[in-house]
């Protein structure tokens, strides 16, 4: 078995796919892994896939030409997954996608297609959840700051939604797990930044206003429930506990304190 390793990025994975495929060792004799994940396997040869613009473009072109935009988006989405096996799943999927073309998305009976479908669905579901559940607070100087802690690397998928909706606002979506942020300038563009340390987050948390609107929201939240219908299990199935430490309505103490609390791991 020859194991190709690649970096944990969309570009890296596609370059890995290129090398594995073009090695002509046969699909059954190669495997694609994200570097520094998984145990070293015996009797295997490891090869690092070098990333080049050229390889990336070739694979991208092939996907778009033979399998279309939808497959391309699925693969991009899957590449944001937190599952280390995603690189090989994408590789296996592309074998079918480049063979069958667009129709592949309907072939859920094929295990490789189904696996990718599930991978992508988990990423999309988390994106949707966070688009709904992220809470912004007024972080001074007219900046809205929202802190999330996603399992998958989804803030890049969340940003376009808010770029449209909150077009006239300066906002930051901060990924607490990866120290990354999507930053948007009022009436302008948004971009992703990788941060070296926690100073950003500290600033976002500290400057959060202890404003009345957070308190008003908690008031509304409390009053809108019908006591006779209380149903915590139903509530939990729709709004899993993992999101709650970051949500204003579940931060019971003074807003500032609660925020610090919720964010401490």
């Amino acid at each position, binding site marked *: 078995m020859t194991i190709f390793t690649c970096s944990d990025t969309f570009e890296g994975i596609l370059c890995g796919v290129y090398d594995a495929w073009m090695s002509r060792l046969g699909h059954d004799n190669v495997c694609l892994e994200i570097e520094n994940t998984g145990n070293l396997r015996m009797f295997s040869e490891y090869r690092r896939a070098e990333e080049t613009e050229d390889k990336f473009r070739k694979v991208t072109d092939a996907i778009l030409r033979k399998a279309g935009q939808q497959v391309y988006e699925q693969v991009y989405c899957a590449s944001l997954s937190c599952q280390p096996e995603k690189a090989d799943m994408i590789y296996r999927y592309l074998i079918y996608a480049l063979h069958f073309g667009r129709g592949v998305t*309907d*072939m859920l*009976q094929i295990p490789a297609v189904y696996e990718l479908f599930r991978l992508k669905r988990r990423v999309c579901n988390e994106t949707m959840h966070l688009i*709904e559940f992220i809470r*912004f607070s007024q972080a001074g100087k007219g900046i809205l700051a929202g802190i999330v802690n996603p399992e998958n690397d989804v803030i890049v998928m969340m940003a376009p939604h808010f770029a*449209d909706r909150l077009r006239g606002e300066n906002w930051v979506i901060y990924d607490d797990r990866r120290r990354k942020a999507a930053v948007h300038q009022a009436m302008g563009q948004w971009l992703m930044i990788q941060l070296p340390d926690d100073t950003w987050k500290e600033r976002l948390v500290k400057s959060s206003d202890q404003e009345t609107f957070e308190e*008003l*929201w908690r008031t509304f939240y409390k009053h809108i*429930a019908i006591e006779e219908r209380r149903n915590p299990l*139903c509530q939990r199935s729709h709004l899993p506990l993992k999101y709650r430490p970051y949500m204003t309505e579940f931060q019971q103490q003074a807003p500032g304190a609660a925020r610090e609390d919720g964010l401490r791991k």
Partner: protein
Amino acid sequence: MLIQESMDLKEKLGILADAAKYDVACTSSGSDRPNRPGTLGNTVAAGLCHSFAADGRCISLLKILFTNQCVYDCRYCINRRSNDVPRAAFTPEEVCRLTIEFYRRNYIEGLFLSSGVLYSPDYTMDLLYQTLWKLRYEYRFNGYIHVKAIPGADPVLIEQVGFLADRMSVNLELPTAEGLRNLAPSKTRTRILTPMRQIQRGIRSQQIQLLPRGGGETIFQDSIAYGGRSGQRQVVYGGEGQIRTRDFRSPGSGRNGSRRRFVPAGQSTQMIVGATPENDFQMLSVAEALYRNYDLKRVFYSAFVRVNDDSRLPVLPGGPPLLREHRLYQADWLLRFYGFQAGELLTEEKPNFNVFLDPKCDWALRHMELFPVEVQTADYNTLLRVPGVGVRSARRIAAARRSARLDFPDLKKMGVVLKRACYFITCSGRLMYPVKLDQDFITGQLVGEEKRKTWDIGDRNSYRQLSMFDDGFLAAAPTEEDVRSAALGQM
């Protein structure tokens, strides 16, 4: 019934959210409107849920009453005149600020504004109009707005408000005229249906007239005759000695001349379940008639909560009839997206839902002669009728079988609930269990499954309200084509 003027915003919000919570509609769907520069917000066709309250219900909109003062005395209502409860009223300004500030922080998709009747229907409707106008034009809010049409209000006011809102609703409250007479003497069937019809006509005539019309002409030629010149119309109304007049500009044109659409997300209504003796068949038939004759987008069902101690209200020993409400939602779903008709699910002879089985399983068990169907060949609408097959899974099956022969494990991947479906389908001519099963056995199995599904999630009498989505996690709205075939009532 004095409004305390000095009350702070937090207190008001508590009172007016409390007073609004028995209205169950909280969806933000049906409008797909991107942001326009200079405004705040957009709307998303499928709607978004921003939180879930302690009762498990979705919170999508800031659902409040403008005021909980009311001149009427509906028996079931917490805000009725004869109740001694604290009263409050917002100002339009306050509603706008709450909406904007909550929206910016991503707490909500928009506003759901309802109100008790202050002085008169016209007076109240005008307050709602002022609030919405301010929100749209002064605060430049481009998110979702659901607003109530107050029965009895001047059609001109209703029309004006319709151009500012995404969705409007008038609550039917009780399914029969008799129920209304009994519990809501100030409301009559006609009074409720009149604005509903007006809104329907407005939406329809807008769909017909694709070309923009000139100047101040109203789109409701058949329902309202505008007096005065070029679409200007005065409404005169009084409340406690005050007379107000208001001049309206031409409907549907914004300040900068852009045209607004009339109630783009359609209208909805709500019926209370269990306050009056109507059976499920009556309720469902009314819902069906509303979908057909009034083009409603949604009918909501609200399990009766006994908030007033009133001799005319029933005492329901098990609390609010949640299971009944749940069954009605399931059946409603079958009407709208699965091509069923009320008369297939219930009849005069059997007018209530089976407590132990969801309406689709119940129907299938009574029609065993139609099953099993072959997954490979059955048409889409037939697949939809199989218990355990949802809109999404039926669509996936139809797509996948073009390229392959499907077997039971494949169906599971497409989202089919095999525990239910296995008795009603064959794959390549084979049943999942090779022996011929009789109806009693299958019923036993399905009841067992339903019980687990219903009971292991909730304790005592709580149910997971959304388990009606057969394809579970994928609770997104069905596509246009499903909606259309459901509307055509295809079998």
